[in-house]
Structures are given as structure tokens and as C-alpha cells.
């Protein structure tokens, strides 16, 4: 995504210009989060399920090498062609070469955050291949020439009137028509024509099973299935961390995924692709693109357990009020802010700071990733490596200096209280990044240590 030189704060400022939209965005996502809570509460064993899922994923990461080999061998036995891609570029080349060999120039694609991460659409389009995204939300942002702003709800930032306008322009719906039912019906007709005429389909993968060599794709619309079952070539793209050991483990993950994502008890379709259809070619591309590196970072490897439910975004007070596009990476929100610096620490140095560290993300995560702790850890790494924005680095260094010396801490506290009482404008001005969007607190009359001393007759 090209965002010029803007960082999260700068991009959030743009989003924040329209206050009414920010409120609406905030409420819409909170509504989804509330549905998640309701769904979670229907299961008394919810916490046990999260723990179970987390431990299964720990086992996966600790045995990934063997599971991938097992998966590959089984998938090949099933008649699936398996490819390995070290990075985004290689992934795109593999997909392109499969299409080229079949002489296919127009394809349908169902939702896959991996292909977003790899910028597959741009790559294929540059090579003269037309890509139609078939998930409704993704099709909408594709028509608007924007990237998705949320991993589960790609066009959550758009109002129905804006979607009506896009459809009027591209699909010929009547001007001013913005009824969701009407617009969805128009998209259905538009996309059915694509499903029926395209020879190749690309899908993502939600889970891949080492034991059986099959992979599972979950959708509500059925677009992955419409594409795959009507195509001559099905290409499925997955990050290597999507492996789970056994088929029966799907019971745990399918119970958690949709409930965490949208509050549904399960997605409408959970399709298990084991073998290609008679006469069909099935390819599967296993992609690294930084995942092996993250696996080696003990503090951050937990992020590879993510099942992409989006719950951490829906609950994040910063995401809800700054919009997905302010994260300038394919995966927005708390988990995206952990994954992106792994790929490019300089480019995404701002993202771990786009959090209040309130811990809400960690509390909702169905696989118990310690999201807010990792964000805090990234801040330290980024400052240490010298990638932090100077204002933040200075503030963090000052804090580090103050907190690590009791004498300086006490003196600084005293000095701070004196400053805030006598010359508050020194603190409450635009140069103090902390003052922006915040009211500075009334300074306490005495420090905690002064209070403690007095009250404990020390």
C-alpha cells in the first residue's frame, strides 16, 4: 500500500477528520465485538477451548518441520501439486506460472489475506491477468481501488451510499440506490457470470491438516466453493503456519473461529478439500515470507498461532477509531502490528506504538496470543534498533532513565509536580506528544513515596 511517508498517527489524523464517521466505525465494530461475547458465553467451556487451541498451536510450532513434510506427502498422494515459496515474489511467480501454463488470463479469487500480503493482484494484473475478487466486501474495495481495511470485514469503513455509488458506476445499478439487499442481489448477478466463465480459481486456506493432506476453507458466501468447483484449475495459497496436526483438531478451531470473528456459531461453509475433482488440477502453495524468521524470535513467535478471526481488531480502541487503512499493511490492527515489523522493521516501526496496551486484544484472542505484551516488546526492540520516531525514542529514553534511578525518579516527580502547578503551559503544549488529544491530569499534592512515608511513620 502506498501511503507516502505517513505513519499510523498521520494516517489516523486523516481518518479522524470526519468525526461522525469515526463514531460510526467505532460503534459498528463494537457491535461485532459484543456479538462475539454473546457467542462465547453460550459455551461454558470457552476458556478451556481457548487453552486447548493455544496448546495445539504450540505443538504445531514446535514440530512444524515434520508436520509440513507429513502434510506435503499426504497432499501429493491425494493428487494435489505442492509448491514452496520463500517469499512474496516467489509466491506470485508460482501462481503466475501455473496460470500461464494453462493459458488462463482471467481468474476468480476468494478471500485470502496471504495473497494481499504478497500483493498478488497487482503482480498478476501487471502480467495481463484479470483478477476478480469474489468475496462481496473484497469486490467492493477492489472496485474502489483500495485494499481491504479489515481481515474479516474488508469494507467495514464504507457506508452503503458509497457502495451504491460504486455499483452505479461499475455495475449499472440505479443512481442513489443503497439498499444492502438490492446491492447484494446486483453483486450476485455480476459475480455469478464471473464464476461461470473463469477457468481458474484461487482460494486461501484456513487450516491444513498434516494427518490427511487436506485443507479447509471457511466462507459465509460460498464464493470459495463456487470458484473452486466450477474451475479447471484450483490454486490454494497458505502461510506455512496454517498447519494443524489432525482432522479432529478442527473441532476446536471451528468452534472458536466464527464465534470470535462475527459471533456466528460457525461459518456457513467449512469446506474440506482432500482431492481434486475428476479432471481438475489442484495446486497448493506453501509460503514462508518471513514466517520462519518470526519462528526464531522467541518473543514474537506466538503471533504465528493467529487464526485470523479479527477479534483483536474489533475490540481495539485504537483500531476502531483510526480505521484499518491507517495501519498501511495488509493485516491491520493489533496482530498486524506484530506481524508487520517482522517483515520490515523500519517501514512498520510506528505500528507497535498504535496501541493503548490495554490488553483487550489479548483477552479476546481465541488462541491466547499475548498480543499486548508482544506490542510492548516490539517497542523496546524498535527503540533499541534505532527505528523509532525521534519524539517517541526521546520520551522512552527519558522514561527509562527516570524509572531506573530512584533518585532521579523522586526528583523528577517533585520537579514535575512543581512544573505542572506553576507553569502548566510548559507541559500542556503541542510539543508534548502526550498532551495531544489528552487533558493532563491535575498534579497530585504529594508523591506516592511522600504519602507512603507520612502514613506509615517511616
Amino acid at each position, binding site marked *: 500500500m502506498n501511503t507516502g511517508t505517513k505513519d499510523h498517527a498521520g494516517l489516523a489524523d486523516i481518518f479522524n477528520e470526519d468525526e461522525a464517521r469515526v463514531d460510526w466505525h467505532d460503534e459498528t465494530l463494537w457491535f461485532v465485538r459484543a456479538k462475539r461475547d454473546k457467542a462465547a458465553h453460550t459455551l461454558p467451556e470457552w476458556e478451556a477451548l481457548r487453552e486447548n487451541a493455544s496448546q*495445539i498451536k504450540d505443538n504445531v510450532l514446535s514440530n512444524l518441520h515434520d508436520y509440513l513434510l507429513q502434510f506435503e506427502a499426504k497432499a501429493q498422494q491425494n493428487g494435489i501439486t505442492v509448491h514452496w515459496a520463500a517469499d512474496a515474489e516467489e509466491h506470485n511467480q508460482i501462481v503466475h506460472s501455473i496460470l500461464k501454463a494453462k493459458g488462463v488470463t482471467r481468474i476468480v479469487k476468494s478471500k485470502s489475506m496471504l495473497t494481499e500480503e504478497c500483493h498478488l493482484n497487482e503482480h498478476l494484473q501487471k502480467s495481463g491477468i484479470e483478477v476478480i475478487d469474489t468475496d462481496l466486501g473484497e469486490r467492493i474495495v477492489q472496485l474502489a481501488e483500495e485494499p481491504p481495511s479489515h481481515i474479516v470485514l474488508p469494507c467495514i469503513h464504507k457506508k*452503503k451510499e458509497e457502495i451504491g455509488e460504486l455499483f452505479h458506476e461499475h455495475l449499472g445499478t440505479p443512481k442513489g440506490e443503497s439498499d444492502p439487499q438490492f446491492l447484494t442481489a446486483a453483486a450476485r448477478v455480476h459475480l455469478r457470470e464471473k464464476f461461470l466463465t473463469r477457468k481458474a480459481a484461487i482460494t486461501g486456506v484456513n487450516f491444513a491438516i498434516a494427518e490427511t493432506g487436506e485443507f479447509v476453507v471457511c466462507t459465509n458466501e*460460498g464464493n470459495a*466453493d463456487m470458484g473452486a468447483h466450477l474451475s479447471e484449475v484450483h490454486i490454494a495459497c497458505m502461510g506455512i503456519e496454517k498447519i494443524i496436526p489432525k482432522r479432529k483438531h478442527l473441532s476446536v478451531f471451528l468452534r472458536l473461529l466464527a464465534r470470535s470473528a462475527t459471533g456466528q*456459531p*460457525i461459518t456457513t461453509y467449512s469446506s474440506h478439500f482432500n482431492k*481434486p475433482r475428476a479432471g481438475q488440477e489442484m495446486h497448493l502453495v506453501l509460503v514462508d515470507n518471513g514466517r*520462519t524468521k518470526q519462528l526464531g524470535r522467541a518473543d514474537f513467535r506466538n503471533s504465528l498461532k493467529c487464526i485470523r478471526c479479527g477479534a483483536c481488531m474489533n475490540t481495539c480502541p485504537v483500531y476502531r477509531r483510526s480505521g484499518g487503512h491507517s495501519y498501511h499493511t495488509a493485516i491491520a490492527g493489533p496482530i498486524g502490528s506484530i506481524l508487520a515489523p517482522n517483515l520490515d522493521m523500519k517501514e512498520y516501526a510506528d505500528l507497535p506504538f498504535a496501541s493503548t496496551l490495554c490488553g483487550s486484544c489479548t483477552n479476546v484472542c481465541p488462541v491466547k496470543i499475548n498480543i499486548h505484551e508482544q506490542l510492548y516488546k516490539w517497542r523496546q526492540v524498535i527503540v533499541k534498533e534505532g527505528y523509532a520516531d525521534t519524539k517517541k525514542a526521546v520520551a522512552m529514553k527519558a522514561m527509562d532513565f527516570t524509572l531506573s534511578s530512584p533518585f532521579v525518579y523522586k526528583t523528577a516527580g517533585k520537579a514535575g509536580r512543581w512544573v505542572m502547578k506553576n507553569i502548566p503551559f510548559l507541559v500542556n503544549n503541542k510539543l508534548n506528544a502526550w498532551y495531544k488529544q489528552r487533558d493532563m491530569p491535575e498534579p497530585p499534592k504529594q508523591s506516592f513515596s511522600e504519602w507512603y512515608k507520612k502514613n506509615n511513620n517511616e
Partner: protein
Amino acid sequence: MNSRAEILSRIKENQPELTSLPAELTAPLQYADPVAMFSTVLGNIGGTAVPVSSYEEIQDYIKTHFADQKRIISTLPELSGVTEAGWEGQDPHSYEDIDIALIKAHFGVAENAALWVTEELMQQRVIPFICQQLAVVVQQKEIYSNMHEAYGQVADAVYGFGTFIAGPSKTADIEQSLVLGAHGPKKMTVFIMADS
């Protein structure tokens, strides 16, 4: 070194010490009346449950409720009296104008109203997705409480393609308004067959 070898060796180097798989979840939620729960959840996700006690009853239902539908196909020989014959074995694209497809499910799951259907029950993989309306027949005694029991049934099953279907195709991508019938079936009827 090719990418495969490179990725595998990096994993080997970077993966943490082996941890074991957890024990299976103890006592996941069981419903006293899974069939009632299934019907309620199905209603909540946009489908309709119809209790029946025989295939004749299903045929009567089709004749009265689906009388205006032109192309009705089925993979169940028991329903051949009211459905099109010889539709199988065509090019999948030719099923585009199917109004109603009737198929059988191996079993249903009460906690989410999902039905497990594999390729041999669909004849053609695209059938449950391309039809305008889907109707599924499931035996009452084959409705389990939760997904753990469900996977207990399919753990060792052999299939080319299998899917859990829970309700009609749906989307809420336009301002979170729920719309039934995104690409696939706009409606879903589940005939729950009483134990004989």
C-alpha cells in the same frame, strides 16, 4: 538450495523445543434435546427446520411448497417421484439454473446447525452451492450436540471433498446488514426425519 529445502532447514533451526498435544477437551456442552437445539440455531442463521416422518411427506412438502419451482433435482432415489431424472454427470456449469437441490447429510450438529455432506452425497461438488435453494435430509438420530462428537464421526472417513453447511449463503458486508443469498442458495430447508 531450493526454497523448499531452505524453508525446511530454517524451520528446523528456529522451531522451539517440542511440546506435546493437549488432552482432549473434557465434557464439552451436551444438549438434553439436540434436535430442538438444532432447529432453533438453524432458524437463527436463516434456515428452516421441517420435521418429517417419511419420504412421502417430503414429496408432499415439495409438491405444495415448491410447486412454482421449475428445476428440482435430487441425489436421493427416494425422492425421484418429484425430481428431475438423469441430471448427473453433466458439466458443472450446466447446473446454474437449478432452483432446488435436495441432498442428504451424514449428520447434523446442534450447537451450530451445521450438516456434514461429502462428495458422494452431492454427486457433483458444486450442487449445494450453485442451486437457488438447498434442501437437506438428515436423520433425527444423527444430530449430535457438538463439533467434537461430529469429528468423532469423520476422523477416519475417506472423501475427496466434504463440507459443513450451516444455513443459506449469506453476507453482511454492506454496513453489517445481513442478506441471505450472496452467491449460493438464498434459502435452506432441513427435513429432519423421525426415527423409524
